[in-house]
């Protein structure tokens, strides 16, 4: 009986362990080893921290990382600001069919691939695109307006791509807030702002934090949106990693960048959790 239970446990855990070790652990260990290699000549390598030093010594790479992190943070904040009222409406005000219809609307963009979504934005924003033509047609602009290839376009793309991942956890936590509690706040003399600040936001904090973590990580790791919408100034850290691996054949530096991204983004998430007084268990559970 006991042996059977043990066997069952092993069988149940096997896929997870295989997945973890084959797809997560081993590649990471391998990448880490690659990142510690320094090329000294054709087919000659030695172990050193040179790749990590490159990151520190070349201000460009550090700047790119900071820029990526700052832009991702801003994208996360904007996404939160837009998603919060939307989620509140879906969770608390809309009922029945309207509720599911709204939820579906948030989901619809994800039925097409990210590439198609990004192309959609390019069609809208480009100089000869829809919005530019509309502005000229209505007389609001004299000539073609270029809205693509700048940081604002990247932001729009990132927020759009991330919206669902913020809305879902927010709707879930907000739905678990009884209407009574909000009404009690009103009843006891609270204004809408104080209720938002003292009751709704503290209650939704786990959802806000988990949504923010997901959106932040998605933005940080996004490749397509910044490169396609950002044009000539679209500097993004993942793009650096990509070009190190694919264009420069410099796997060593690429691997080091990858690990730095992993470490720094984990540090930022950890800092956010500390700052908001949340724990990972609370937000993910």
């Amino acid at each position: 009986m006991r042996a059977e239970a043990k066997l069952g446990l092993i069988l149940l855990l096997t896929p997870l362990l295989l997945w973890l070790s084959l797809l997560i652990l081993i590649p990471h260990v391998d990448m880490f080893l690659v990142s510690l290699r320094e090329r000294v000549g054709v087919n000659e390598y030695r172990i050193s921290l040179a790749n990590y030093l490159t990151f520190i010594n070349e201000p460009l790479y550090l700047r790119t990382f900071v820029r990526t992190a700052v832009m991702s943070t801003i994208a996360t904040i904007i996404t939160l600001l837009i998603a919060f009222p939307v989620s509140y409406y879906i969770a608390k005000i809309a009922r029945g069919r309207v509720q599911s219809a709204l939820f579906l609307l948030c989901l619809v963009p994800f039925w097409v691939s990210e590439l198609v979504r990004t192309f959609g934005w390019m069609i809208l924003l480009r100089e000869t695109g829809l919005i530019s033509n509309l502005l000229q047609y209505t007389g609001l602009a004299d000539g073609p307006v270029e809205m693509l290839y700048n940081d604002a376009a990247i932001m729009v793309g990132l927020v759009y791509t991330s919206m669902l991942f913020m809305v879902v956890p927010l709707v879930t936590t907000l739905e678990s807030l009884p209407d009574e509690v909000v009404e009690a706040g009103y009843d006891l003399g609270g204004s809408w702002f104080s209720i938002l600040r003292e009751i709704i936001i503290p209650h939704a904090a786990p959802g806000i934090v988990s949504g923010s973590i997901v959106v932040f990580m998605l933005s940080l790791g996004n490749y397509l949106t910044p490169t396609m919408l950002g044009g000539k100034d679209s500097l993004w850290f993942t793009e650096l990693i990509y070009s190190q691996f694919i264009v420069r054949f410099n796997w060593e530096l690429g691997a080091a960048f990858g690990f730095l991204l992993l470490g720094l983004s984990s540090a930022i998430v950890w800092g956010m959790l500390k700052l908001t007084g949340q724990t990972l268990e609370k937000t993910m559970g």
Partner: protein
Amino acid sequence: MRHPRTICLSSITISVAMIAAPVSAETLRLLTWGGYAPEDVVAKFEAETGHTVEVTKSNNEEMIAKLRATAGGGFDLAQPSQDRIAGPQEEFGIYKPIDLSKIDATLFIPSMLAATQENTTVGGEVYGVPHVWGTSGLVLDTSMAGMVQDYADLCGEDVAGKVSYRLKRPTLIGFAFSMGLDPFTAYGDEAAYTEIMEQVEAKLIDCKPNVKTYWGGGDELMGLVRSGEVVASMAWDTGGWKLNADNPNITFVAPASGALGWVDTFVLPAKGRADDAAYDWINFVMRPEIAAMITAAAGNFTASQGADEFADDALKARYQASFPPEAIDNIKWYPPVPAGLEAIEGGVLDRVKAAN
């Protein structure tokens, strides 16, 4: 047409486990450019030889990255440019030598075959034979950007904000030539090359406000030029010719400092399993009538002897308009890239991208 696919982060993880093919009729896993293996050619080949062909479209960098990730496995025949063979081979050993006795040399233009063999020889072994060749230069809307004669003119006032080029090594090389420098002779000398690249970097950073966006893929460039958002761009000849068919004002122009000539080759990946099928494919597509079919699909001419006769007249006319005889003599053919140059260029490209 060359279609570098911009998106392939996952290419590293594509380590393929495929089932071994039977000996006589094999499966040929072909890693090539868009247009180099048109469906009608594949169908003809399969009918004639009994082999099956699986085509994967890619570009130079991805081809090498893929082969490197699997140490030369997963594909039986690849088509990188001739300048990207010797370096990666020395560094990563991802190719295997070509058995020239299995190639029908009479199908090739002798001078091109010889040049390619020389450029792709490592340790006394030949690793590549030529297939398709072409140039990169300028694609211009002559009604708007007639004054652009060379790459450096892309930085002129007249075309400000309506210019595009790739942020890749051909741009660095092209600008270097148009600035009166000679990067190819500096290939062997890292210090000299670095110096040239530093000058190019300054120029490109200077030029950045002029640029609308750096294009990534052929379709993106076509869209930009077609819509009139870009009137002058560094691009491949075929792109210009294709646009010329739609709008006679737009065409490919060989720059004053010389168009950059490239040759895409056939190479055998180190762990390829269907060499016979690969040789069959090479000898098949180099037949003049088949080569003409590829020219029709890709827009570029091949190293096939006598294929010109079968080529489309309109294409020949465009070619002749873009390349007067002196321009052909002026084509700068890429010599093999020594291993390690990419790192220098990479730094330049990163800094240009980051500049404001």
